[in-house]
């Protein structure tokens, strides 16, 4: 990469570009939009996990003053396709004949205000015929389990690359199968000195974004305008187009700041219902969920992961076979992609003679599971890094030395045909090992102490994706950047503004990142997979370079010299010590009303059928974790004493932003390791339906001490070697905690979360607890 791409330095971190909007309370967020004549829509949800709908009586609800309409599954006639979901379109806009989870949407009310809408919901009578619920993977796969759908749905086949196969809805209650084969695992395992098979249970958590899900639709005239908190405005536009049988241009999606997403606001959610209600009402409609309802909208995937790993007595890894069952919940959402990524990523950052994986998504009568920060990589890293530690201990080797022996070095492809590893896995491991503070337990205290490490990994930036950006700069040097990276808190505004400011040599305060609007913003494939910096950022960089070239050409003409002699500086052309201010030059050339110089940037990573997933993964996202903890042998309580985590930003464009991604993800993952969980009662009722029941991390849940670090390998594909870090914080934590527990107690926990009850039961089984005093 050319040297001129490297800036002198960023201003000592400096403010995020969205700081004033957010710290002042200004926003805006989607819910701040108000339209004249806007009505309020709310939905009625199933109290049953699984039931047939015999009849719905909306007469009393419709008769209430102020109620504009009540819609049920019988009112979907305006839709050409009534279902949505990625790859498999199986989720109806409103339930038609059957509900498949507690919270499934049965009817919607449009009324003059929220209170009226709630009264109307209470007046709707639904006659349900309950069916046996299928609350987990075992129940759904039981030979006598009911078929949750009984039909195949409209779907798109996911075509991948070398060694990878997929199938949609292959068997009863199975949404999706993924398989990947790289070499002959059976033959390789036969040569191994030892072969270990271990099973792990991964629990699931909610996204718990603070901004409850919301969408405003105005579909009165011959087009539909939508304001929503979605991470993927252009993907949503395509879904709306297909579902309503109207051209994409019929729909205009507009976005504000998104109040947290973590994957939970990706792809099509309930925007089609908002559009439909607005069409039926002939007025703008706001469909707003409570935070309770947001909990019912989507979760992470729980899963059962079985790893069979062969190893030589000297500690050389030989081969691994991964078998994963993911709990997809009631409907598809993005489950297929999660399965693909979980299966592939469970190889971990290690060299194998052979690796194969199968990952299936099982349907259950629970909240749909879908995209979640980490996207299968969290599940995979948990199982893989747990088992690596277990094997090291079984071989009597130091877990860190065992890892070091088997790491893929930077520059070597993750798998044949895939992109090369662009991080120094070893240096991050050394760093956490050196930085972690660990002291033995005080003598006589009823506690055991241990330390554990993990190296979580996922690919980042997805594969075969594209990025687009447009920049225009006014006569006075103010820059407007347009691209489709949604500001969901990850810092896209800051990264994008800084990249443009750096190339155009203007203060970052002169750069404004335009709000995303599908009518005017260049196309984008969605804010996922930690793409904004490495992918969209590259397009922004290219767009800025096009503007820069035009400005230098103007300068070359004005000064009668070659472009190579010129540079930009503070909205001037600079030749050596000579400064030519641009504003007067532009006015002289284009007249006193001035001009706007514009530039576009585009990047498209090509398909490559020899790559396992049909295109190379854009980059690699490690998460290094070290944990020192204490287990109370009387109560089973775990106290995190010290913690160190690190990520590889390639090149950190805003250190505070990178740090916040790691620390924020890490605390969510730590909560998931210790207590946070979507739970159902034994008879199938949702046990954590409100923020009072569903416990997320508070400040008091921070480790006793905690430091994060940023490595900058400079090897990322983005501008100046940058890459994304947005999902890294989720990856390594659960395994590091489990590894530390084993280090402390000698007992291995494989069933997340590691609650005091489970810890105590495991200690009891191992005879490590004190018998209660008589």
């Amino acid at each position, binding site marked *: 990469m050319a040297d001129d791409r490297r800036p002198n330095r960023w201003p000592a*971190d400096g*403010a*995020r570009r*969205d*700081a*004033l*909007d*957010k*710290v*002042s*309370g*200004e*926003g*805006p*967020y989607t*819910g*701040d939009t108000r339209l004249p004549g806007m009505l309020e829509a709310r939905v009625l949800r199933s109290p049953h996990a699984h039931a047939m709908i015999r009849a719905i009586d909306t007469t009393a609800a419709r008769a209430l003053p102020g109620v504009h309409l009540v819609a049920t599954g019988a009112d979907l006639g305006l839709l050409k396709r009534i279902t949505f979901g990625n790859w498999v379109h199986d989720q109806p806009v409103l339930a038609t004949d059957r509900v498949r989870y507690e919270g499934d949407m049965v009817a919607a009310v449009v009324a003059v205000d929220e209170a009226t809408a709630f009264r109307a919901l209470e007046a709707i009578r639904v006659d349900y015929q309950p069916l046996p619920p299928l609350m987990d993977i075992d129940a759904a796969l039981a030979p006598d389990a009911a078929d949750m759908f009984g039909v195949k749905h409209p779907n798109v086949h996911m075509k991948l690359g070398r060694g990878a196969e997929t199938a949609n809805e292959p068997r009863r209650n199975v949404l999706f199968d993924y398989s990947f084969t790289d070499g002959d695992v059976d033959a390789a395992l036969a040569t191994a000195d030892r072969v270990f098979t271990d099973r792990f249970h991964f629990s699931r958590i909610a*996204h*718990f*974004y*603070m*901004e*409850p899900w919301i969408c405003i639709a105005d579909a009165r005239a011959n087009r539909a305008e939508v304001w929503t908190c979605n991470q993927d405005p252009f993907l949503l536009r395509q879904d709306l187009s297909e579902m309503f049988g109207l051209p994409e241009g019929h729909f205009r999606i507009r976005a504000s*700041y*998104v*109040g*947290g*997403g*973590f994957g939970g606001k990706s792809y099509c959610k309930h925007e089609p219902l908002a559009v439909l209600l607005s069409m039926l009402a002939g007025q703008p409609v706001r469909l707003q969920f*409570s*935070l309770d309802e947001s909990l019912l909208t989507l979760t992470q995937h729980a899963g059962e992961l079985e790893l069979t790993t062969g190893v030589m007595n000297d500690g050389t890894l030989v081969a691994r076979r991964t078998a994963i069952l993911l709990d997809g919940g009631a409907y598809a959402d993005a489950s297929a992609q999660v399965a693909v990524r979980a299966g592939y990523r469970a190889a971990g950052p290690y060299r194998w003679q052979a690796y194969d994986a199968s990952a299936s998504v099982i349907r259950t009568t629970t909240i749909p599971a879908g995209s979640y920060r980490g996207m299968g990589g969290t599940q995979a890293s948990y199982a893989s890094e747990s088992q690596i530690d277990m094997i090291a201990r079984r071989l009597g080797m130091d877990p860190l030395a065992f890892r070091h022996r088997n790491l893929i070095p930077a520059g070597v492809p993750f798998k044949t045909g895939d992109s090369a590893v662009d991080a120094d896995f070893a240096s991050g491991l050394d760093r956490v090992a050196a930085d972690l503070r660990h002291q033995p337990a005080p003598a006589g205290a009823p506690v055991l102490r241990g330390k554990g490490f993990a190296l979580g990994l996922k690919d980042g930036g997805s594969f075969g994706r594209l990025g687009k950006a447009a920049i225009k700069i006014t006569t006075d040097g103010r820059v407007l950047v347009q691209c489709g990276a949604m500001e*969901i*808190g*990850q*810092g896209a505004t800051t990264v994008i503004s800084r990249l443009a400011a750096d190339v155009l040599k203007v203060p970052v305060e002169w750069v404004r990142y335009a709000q995303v609007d599908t009518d005017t913003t260049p196309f984008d494939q969605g804010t996922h997979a930690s793409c904004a910096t490495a992918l969209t950022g590259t397009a922004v960089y290219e767009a800025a370079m096009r503007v820069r070239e035009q400005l230098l050409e103007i300068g070359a003409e004005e000064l009668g010299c070659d472009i190579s002699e010129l540079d930009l500086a503070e909205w001037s052309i600079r030749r050596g010590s000579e400064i030519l201010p641009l504003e007067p030059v532009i006015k002289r050339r284009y007249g006193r009303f001035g001009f706007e110089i514009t530039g576009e940037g585009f990047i498209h990573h090509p398909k490559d059928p020899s790559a396992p997933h049909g295109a190379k993964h854009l980059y690699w996202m490690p998460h290094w974790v070290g944990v020192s903890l204490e287990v109370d042998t009387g109560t089973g309580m775990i106290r995190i004493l010290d913690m160190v985590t690190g990520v590889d930003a390639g090149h950190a464009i*805003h250190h*505070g*932003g990178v*740090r*916040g991604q790691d*620390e*924020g*993800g*890490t*605390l*969510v993952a730590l909560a998931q390791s210790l207590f946070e969980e979507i739970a159902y009662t034994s008879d199938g009722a949702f046990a954590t339906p*409100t*923020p*009072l029941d569903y416990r*997320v*991390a*508070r*400040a*008091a849940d*921070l480790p006793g001490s*905690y430091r994060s670090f940023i490595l900058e390998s400079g090897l990322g594909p983005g501008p100046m070697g940058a890459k994304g870090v947005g999902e890294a*914080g989720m990856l390594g934590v659960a395994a590091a905690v489990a590894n530390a527990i084993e280090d402390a107690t000698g007992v291995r926990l494989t069933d997340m979360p590691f609650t005091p009850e489970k810890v105590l039961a495991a200690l009891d089984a191992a005879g490590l607890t004190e018998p209660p005093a008589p």
Partner: protein
Amino acid sequence: MNDLIPIRFRLNGIDRKAAVEPNQVLADLLRDDLGQTDVRVSCDQGVCGVCSVLVDGVPVTACLTPAFRADGCEIVTAKGLASGSDALSDVQRAFVDVSAFQCGFCTPGMVISATALLAAHPAPDRATIVGWLGANVCRCTGYQMIIEAIELAAARRAETLHVRIGEPAD
């Protein structure tokens, strides 16, 4: 139909009048009736602290506070924290300087809690900060940078105080 209750209060330094339903909450009055969009509602049950505002200097969750309770009170929201020509208060400035926010949805409530905390404890230790932050949920940051922002604001106030004390008298 309930009888409306007339109330008078001060909102971010401006005298306001309103007629509120007996069952109306302060969040709805401020956000829906008075357009105070920095008062955001998340959990709507007093758990998350996103909607926090100051009522006579005391932080409350506006989603659980009856609107009539505002009668005769001084209400301050995040937008009302700055004084004079400053766009931000010193607490807000510290949040900017530490990048102690991400999605920003919880931030107004956070700066309200932090402001009340520093009024009660000008030099809080970490345990005090952690205790006060028990009233607010942030799903993005992992809290550590928020804690640092509060510590920074406290340190700057102490510094300012020190400089003032050290200034020669006229």
